[in-house]
């Protein structure tokens, strides 16, 4: 996605399209980070946070 964004915005001259692709990465990135952050927390830590 980063490569496509660069190609569309810088090489292709369509800055709007490139920017749209870059910002479209954010939800995917956020989802991946939330899964890796909360999914891999120790069960004891997660339980402690709930209490």
């Amino acid at each position, binding site marked *: 996605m*980063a490569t496509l964004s660069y190609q569309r915005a810088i090489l292709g001259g369509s800055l709007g399209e490139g920017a749209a692709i870059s910002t479209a990465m954010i939800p995917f990135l956020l989802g991946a980070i939330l899964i890796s952050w909360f999914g891999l927390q120790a069960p004891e830590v997660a339980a402690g946070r709930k209490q």
Partner: protein
Amino acid sequence: MPASARGGAFVGLENYEWLWDDSVFWLSVFNTLLYTGVATVIKFAVGLYLAILLNENLPFKAMLRAVVLIPFIVPTVLSAIAFWWLYDSQFSIISWSLRKAGLIATNIDFLGDVWNARWSVIFANIWRGVPFVAITLLAGLQTVSPSLYEAATIDGANRWQMFRHVTYPLLTPIIAVVMTFSVLFTFTDFQLIWVLTRGGPVTPRN
């Protein structure tokens, strides 16, 4: 009037609407998710194994730890160029070795075939990313008190049980941080893909 001085028309969400119907964009989403998913899982598995190995009392331990860090120290563009040579369709040393060993008849087109290109860039990313995971997890492993292992040994735990019930629970906060950073770096990777494939093969956008 130069183009930069002309007033622009506000297009709202038109660029996103256009992206929604763009098959190349969805292909790039698939490629990015595949690249991130496969590379991150393998980097974690290999990095954890390497960290446990480096935590043992090995001869030349300090030197081994320094050697493990080399792929991470080398600038990304330089390691990408090295992989570009390794994956060359005509002069690849991998193809040459396999041909000499009689395992293949013709050279492998590492970067010219869609699936070969995907696995090739994933392998290059794994090679580059393993040291970061290994060294960070090694730092976490060194905070685990040896007395816990002694207690587990007295209780009759084998090596797997010690890892599962002592090492892994104490390492999970570090694993969460390492995996978050690993996903972040892999998802936004640009240099490696650009140097190796220019976004190809097939079209310069795939």
